[in-house]
């Protein structure tokens, strides 16, 4: 596949992600109100000067909540991806450098898990683990493992027959050292890029879990949780649903725009084919 010049959509994505990260970073200083404080304004006020996104049924400022919610949503995504990537990466590399039977077994198991959409796995896990920020994050992390393991396996399998691996082996380098010092650095760059791909899925999963009441607990202003709390006001106070909904859309869109350009290069489904 020929290398593409960085298109304006990717630039747009990078710009938006940068903006969102900056907003999330300065949210506590930028937010006009404490996002948890009730009755800072009238209840169910429509967007207006002072309350740019309106207020919810408790008179909390939605702008402050959505802004501070960015930290939570992105934070969950980041932690979940880090865990998922590390665990998935270890499984993938080990599988790629192990015997035929182990490899077949691991791949088969991953295929089974991979046939379940990640949101579904996260949902089932959190239903058992119990709700809450940390359980939801763990559930999302685990749901990402099959994907990352599969990708890492694909990358590592390509490295296996390369001369440097053979050379290291002949030089008497131990198996674990070979994987950690020689193979991993060669594929880490692509793996980190893969991380951005997981972001969108992790944020959507987190929002979905919170929407079902299984994720971040109220009154924390996670976007899915705000949606869940305001869902019955869709008719009376639609802004409670529109603002966090748009925040999720824009954030996921930005990560997707960046990720999309990389996806073709590393997608395990396409690798098998061509």
């Amino acid at each position, binding site marked *: 596949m020929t290398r593409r010049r960085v298109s304006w959509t990717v630039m747009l994505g990078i710009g938006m992600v940068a903006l969102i990260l900056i907003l999330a970073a300065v949210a506590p200083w930028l937010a006009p109100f404490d996002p948890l404080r009730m009755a800072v304004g009238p*209840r169910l006020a429509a967007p207006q000067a002072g309350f740019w996104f309106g207020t919810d049924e408790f008179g909390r400022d939605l702008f402050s909540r959505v802004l501070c919610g960015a930290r939570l949503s992105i934070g969950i995504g980041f932690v979940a991806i880090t865990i998922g990537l590390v665990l998935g990466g270890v499984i993938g590399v080990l599988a790629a450098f192990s015997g035929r039977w182990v490899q077949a077994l691991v791949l088969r198991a991953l295929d089974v898990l991979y046939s379940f959409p990640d949101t579904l796995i996260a949902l089932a896990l959190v239903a058992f683990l119990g*709700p809450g920020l940390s359980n939801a994050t763990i559930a999302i992390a685990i749901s990402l493992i099959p994907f990352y393991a599969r990708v890492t396996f694909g990358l590592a399998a390509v490295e296996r027959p390369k001369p440097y691996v053979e050379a290291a082996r002949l030089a008497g380098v131990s198996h674990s050292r070979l994987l950690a010092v020689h193979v991993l650095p060669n594929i880490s760059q692509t793996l980190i890029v893969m991380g951005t791909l997981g972001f969108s899925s992790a944020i959507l999963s987190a929002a979905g879990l919170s929407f079902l009441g299984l994720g971040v607990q109220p009154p924390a202003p996670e976007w899915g949780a705000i949606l869940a709390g305001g869902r019955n006001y869709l008719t009376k106070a639609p802004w409670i649903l529109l603002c966090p909904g748009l925040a999720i859309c824009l954030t996921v869109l930005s990560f997707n725009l960046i990720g999309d350009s990389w996806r073709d290069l590393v997608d395990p489904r396409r690798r098998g084919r061509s």
Partner: protein
Amino acid sequence: MYSGCHGFLLPTTVRRALARVVLAGVSSIVLGHGAARAADAPALVVARSVDADNLDPQKTANTQSLQITNLVFDTLLTMARDGSIHPGLAESWTAAPDGKSYSFILRDGLTCHDGTVFDAAAAKFSVDRAVNPETNNPNSAAWGPITATSVDHNTLTVNLSAPYAPFPAFLTSIQAAVICPSSVVGTAFKPIGTGPFKLVSWTRNDRITLEANPAYRNFNPLITNPGAPHIAKIEFAVIPEAVARMAALRSGEVQMAEPSLEETADLSKDKNFRVYASDLSGQQMVMAFTWKIKPLDNPDVRRAIGMALNRDAYRDIAFQGLVSTADCPVAPHLPATDEALCRSYGVSYDPVAAKALLAKAGYGPDKPLKVILSVHKLPGWDEMHQIMQQDLATIGVQADIETREVAAFFDHMKGENERTTGTPVVWTMGMSGVDPDYLSFLWKRPGFVNMGIGPELDGMLEDQRRLSGAARTEKIHEIDKYLLQNAYAVPLLSPGWGWLMASTTKVEGFKMGFMVSLLFNDVTVAP
């Protein structure tokens, strides 16, 4: 013209097979839909948020299930608005002077939905099955300490090992449904009763269809229609998303729906709709504590938490003003419940005094008390807990909310109530019934989810079962006093779940009975 070009077209056999599948699919959709239309339109469609989980009244304790079984089955006795007990399937009853035996004379000429005769033997079958341990009836203990049942002509006699004063009251409740023996075939259960409606079909999570029982005779004093229901058919549809349910009601797709709290006020102002609120729910919401864990073992700390709660705000903001604050551990309007008396025993909203109490117990700004606010999901409750959290923050108590689904919640609380160390838990729950005896099931050790307290309270709870009349009332007040003065329970609001219904003005005569039962006998639907 190019069809043979690359050989990419499907082989003929595959193409034919595919065509058949597609045709079958399309025709099933089209015909299926047509068939549904052709059948006569249901007289009344009622949308609820949650489906029944079991239509065997002796295997479920869940409100949504009992609301349906109560339409299919009758009870031996019935209760009037004032709490007085009246005949039902039994035309009269007598209690032995020692309170350990009851006799019920069954009415003549009662028939089950399948045409079989309903007599004293059938009633015996039902009671025996309800208390048989093999049945796994979650309500079996509420039937009391039944030791034997016997039949003589049209008389059913029930013997108890100890006096059980709430027995007649329990027999009027929706948990005490009497089933016809033909309902049970081996391990299978088919709901066949004597009630105003027959079950036609049930598609779980989707739809329950009932049709009127033309042979019905009514004995319930809450109902005026003496015979068969006026409407021919009721369908209960499940629409979980409140916005969708409201849309279905407004568009006329359903004629009756469980309204969302958020839209109830608007509906009651709208002249095209009627809103019904049950005043006989027997429901009470309370806050309870894992009092075995420090510092919740200190009654002052529990009192301080109770004093932080601004129940008026829960009522007005979380429940949109559709409930009332209630001050007893059991619901208002139940026998022996005296709200003014309870008010004098319990704590009232006073955050300043609450702070002082906490300071006395050694907690303040530099040493905040950290608790978990463990709760389950329900409309209104979710909002209440958020305000509650802020109330607790005001007096310096840091509460983390943990929300679970009902089943998982009680499972979890069972363990929490046994703990003696770790983070203390403050939790909320609701309960309902037709008699204050439900205090026994909650608070007598081990108690519901291990919430029992101790020997002193156990004794009082046993005593009230043996007593009747004024003596029992006094004993119940003593129990209220014990629970409130020691702040084991902080009463919150009443009612709390499923007590609202809304309909279009085409629907007339709908009533809600005890324990939010739904009464459709008097309902008429204008075209």
